[in-house]
């Protein structure tokens, strides 16, 4: 007896027609009938209209915030067999980028972390802005941070208009977690462990070093309440991890804070705007 493939049966379960030569089989085969019944149970337990709307809205926010062609290997699945694949020409120029990330994570990051710790130990004063930031720049600028569509963003909150670094370092090392952000500006990358200043067109990626396995989540919480997840919730082991996604700075400016921590702590910080319990990095706008 020739059974249809699982894929055919799944398609049939969601209402697509079976290939003609298999149509009769499904009516007669009890095994296929039972499998179809189970599949239909699964299909009927699918998302409600509200859940579907929410999921699509989240995906829309992500699509707007992400780089336009991520993930790299995604192509029309029905065009897969046709070489050359559209993404292949892009992979070559990205190789140096990967090497650069490797270099940043293996050499620059430990050195910068050691230097930052040394500076923090030697000086009680708040850390100065990074060398490539404009020292004349005031700290209360508006920056965009992957603005979410209206309706998705949490309700706006009042902000003081000043950075959180006035009295304490912007980066808080807790529980063996060290956080930095890498800013990509027209291909030139710079790493920041305190406030990062950005301008339209920049991309930010988060770097997290862990000394033990733990569940973490990383996101950008803009001062207007919008929220963009850069590092999805996952259990990550000891070592250096880069966020799976980057935030692109667009022309709608809002200052924000990169928050990293346990999923519960991040959710709490997002809801209450109280950043205690999460590691933070401030994002401000660079002077024009």
């Amino acid at each position, binding site marked *: *007896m*020739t*059974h*249809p*493939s*699982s*894929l055919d049966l*799944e*398609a049939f*379960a*969601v*209402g*697509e027609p079976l290939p003609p030569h298999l149509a009769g089989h499904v009516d007669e*085969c009890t*095994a*296929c009938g039972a*499998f179809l019944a*189970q*599949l239909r149970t*699964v*299909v*009927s*337990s*699918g*998302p*409600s*209209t509200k*859940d*579907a709307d929410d*999921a*699509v809205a*989240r*995906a*829309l926010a*992500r*699509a707007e915030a*992400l780089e*336009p062609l*991520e*993930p790299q*290997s*995604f*192509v*029309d*699945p*029905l*065009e*897969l*067999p*046709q070489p050359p694949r559209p993404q292949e020409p892009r992979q070559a120029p990205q190789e140096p980028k990967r090497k650069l990330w490797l270099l940043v994570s293996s050499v620059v990051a430990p050195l910068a972390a050691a230097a930052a710790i040394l500076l923090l130990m030697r000086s009680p004063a708040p850390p100065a802005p990074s060398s490539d930031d404009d020292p004349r720049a005031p700290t209360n600028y508006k920056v965009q941070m992957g603005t979410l569509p209206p309706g998705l963003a949490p309700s706006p909150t009042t902000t003081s208009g000043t950075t959180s670094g006035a009295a304490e370092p912007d980066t808080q090392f807790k529980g063996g977690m060290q956080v930095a952000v890498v800013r990509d500006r027209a291909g030139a990358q710079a790493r920041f462990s305190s406030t990062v200043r950005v301008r339209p067109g920049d991309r930010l990626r988060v770097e997290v070093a862990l000394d033990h*396995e733990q569940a973490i989540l990383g996101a950008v919480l803009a001062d207007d309440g919008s929220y963009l997840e850069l590092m*999805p*919730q*996952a*259990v*990550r*082991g000891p*070592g250096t*991890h880069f966020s*799976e996604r980057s935030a692109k700075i667009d022309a709608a400016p809002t200052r924000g804070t990169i928050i990293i921590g346990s999923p519960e702590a991040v959710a709490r910080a997002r809801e209450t705007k109280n950043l205690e319990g999460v590691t933070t990095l401030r994002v401000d706008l660079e002077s024009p």
Partner: protein
Amino acid sequence: MYQRFGALLARRCLLLLRDQAQADDAVQELLSVLLRRGEGLRVADSPWKWLARAADRTCIDLLRRGKHLRTAVDIDDLDPVGVAPGMDPEARCAVVESLQRLDEDQQLLAIMLFVDGLSQGEAALELGLSRVTINKRAQELRARLRLDQAPSSSKTPSAKEARP
């Protein structure tokens, strides 16, 4: 679209990634990709098959990027529905457990043959390769997954292929 296919997409992603959080992320990622580049779905003969392949690619992407997957989850807990009639549950289990370790060109073929239960001819048609090539790659896959040594009374895709 998501209401219609969401549950099966979630099942598929969970099966391939074996991690609920990653599976949720894969579905979200897939949706966001569809919003940007989903034109092919509108003209696909079978929207579900199109989506299934897109989900496969998204999961493979996540597998390549992820380093710390939980591997101790029983496949029966992930997919209570089980395998379709005529398929080898051990082969599917072996593929799901080894997916991250397979080469890139082996991953999709393994999913087609041992998760979706396509015949080698159907896989050849979908991948645009000859049946001889698919047969050779399937044998390599079986060897790598040690499927030839696994006892199985079920009909495997290779056996399916032999039918007239």
